[in-house]
């Protein structure tokens, strides 16, 4: 059975990994806010942000190539934005291209918007990847809990984390069972089978949910999940948190 990990590299031994999850959540979310709220033309600020993030990745002993590969997830979104650019307001012409059916022109404001989206989404996703690669998912949930995230939200997250893998395993098993008994057939027939599989998956999950609830009741569950989060906020965390005022300062000065 293949093991799925949501949090690759979160078990690496480094000073960043050892920090309290709360500090990391605060810092990375703040860095995203700083990046998103700045002007598209504040190149220096973007450079400094990128530098900070890459340094954190290096200190955390994370392979940069792996991180770069993960950033690829934003490509579809970028493509969508770039497709819409020719249809934006054309104040100043930024350039044009000819597709044979008549020329399409690209406005300068459109290009600025594209750049804005590219740089901010890259930095934002990079921050989130760093957060998830330096913090295991359970720790992340506990960090959110201690930052006063509503309990219902963290409980949902923890159940999702625990059972999404089991659901994926179940899907794989059903697919294997289907493939070992299906020998071609019409498209319509296949879609019917997939419909049945989705139905079965729902029923199985529903039953599992009931059994889990029984298991919870058997161990004294009375409607509230006990809190187990314990954390320490030491010197390391405080130093790491200094990144926040520093970048807020940069944001104010550099726009």
């Amino acid at each position, binding site marked *: 059975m293949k093991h799925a990990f949501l949090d690759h590299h979160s078990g690496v031994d480094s000073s960043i990994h050892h920090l309290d999850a709360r500090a990391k959540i605060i810092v990375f979310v703040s860095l995203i806010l700083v990046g998103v709220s700045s002007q598209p033309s504040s190149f220096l600020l973007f450079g400094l942000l990128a530098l900070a993030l890459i340094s954190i990745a290096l200190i955390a002993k994370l392979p940069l190539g792996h991180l770069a590969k993960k950033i690829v997830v934003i490509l579809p979104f970028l493509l969508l934005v770039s497709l819409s650019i020719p249809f934006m307001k054309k104040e100043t012409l930024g350039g044009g291209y000819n597709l044979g059916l008549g020329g399409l022109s690209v406005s300068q404001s459109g290009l600025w918007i594209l750049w804005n989206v590219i740089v901010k989404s890259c930095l934002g996703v990079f921050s989130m990847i760093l957060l998830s690669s330096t913090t295991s998912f*359970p720790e992340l949930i506990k960090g959110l809990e201690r930052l006063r995230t509503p309990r219902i939200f963290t409980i949902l997250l923890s159940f999702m984390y625990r059972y999404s893998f089991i659901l994926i395993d179940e899907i794989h098993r059903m697919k294997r069972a289907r493939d070992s008994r299906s020998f071609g057939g019409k498209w319509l027939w296949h879609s019917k089978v997939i419909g049945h599989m989705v139905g079965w998956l729902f029923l199985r999950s529903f039953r*599992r949910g009931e059994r889990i609830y029984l298991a*919870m009741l058997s161990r004294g569950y009375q409607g509230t999940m006990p809190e187990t989060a314990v954390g320490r906020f030491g010197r390391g965390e405080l130093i790491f948190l200094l990144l926040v005022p520093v970048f807020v300062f940069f944001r104010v000065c550099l726009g």
Partner: protein
Amino acid sequence: MKPRKVIEIQHLSYHYPDGTAALKEIDLEVWDHESIAVLGPNGAGKSTLLYHLNGTLMGDGNVTILGLPVEKKTLKEIRRRVGLVFQNPEDQLFCPTVFDDVAFGPLNMGLKMESVQQEVKRALARVGLEGFEGRSAHHLSEGEKKRVALATVLSMNSEILVFDEPTDNLDPAGSRLLVEQIQSIPQTKVIVTHHLAVAADLCKRAILLREGRKVEDLTMESLLRNGALLVESGFDPDFAQWVCERKKTSGRLCT
């Protein structure tokens, strides 16, 4: 001194919501520190009987645990006294980490965090999984999952432990390890199983269920020696003979 009666069931019947009778007029008494095997074919009502022991299901008739009747208002106390180990550890382990799962029961019982940490440590040591606190259940082997599931009830210090198919899905080595660990638990145990060898290793007394009725209540030894009864119950008498011989050499059951 007469041993204490820890479980007393009188005229227990249970119908599923669709009207199917799952248990019919069951009477049962279990004494302190006894280990009792519940045997029977699929659909005989074994698991349904187990669910009555901690009030997860409540049928018609009386169930008394350590002198306390199982009712809505006694449920909290009943569940503290009866620890239930589910057949599928995926249902029993619903938290993001092993620690959270083992701590779930004690925390629901209102224990302080320091003593909960001690209980978790002790329970994990009992099942030979020291240092597994931070692991995620998804990344454990089947045998480890079963042992963590056992630890989740050991941490509650229940006086009665109830097992539903404890060695299900385990390889022979894993099964043997788990049987040894269950053997070393001094509490009163009720064990549902299909495996005659497991039942013989763990229990001196057995009850046989068939179609919701208790048809036999006898010592393990007399069951293993009663060829006609074994055949009638779907067991292999030759295998029972082998189990008996094996026990004779280890000197624990048949003399």
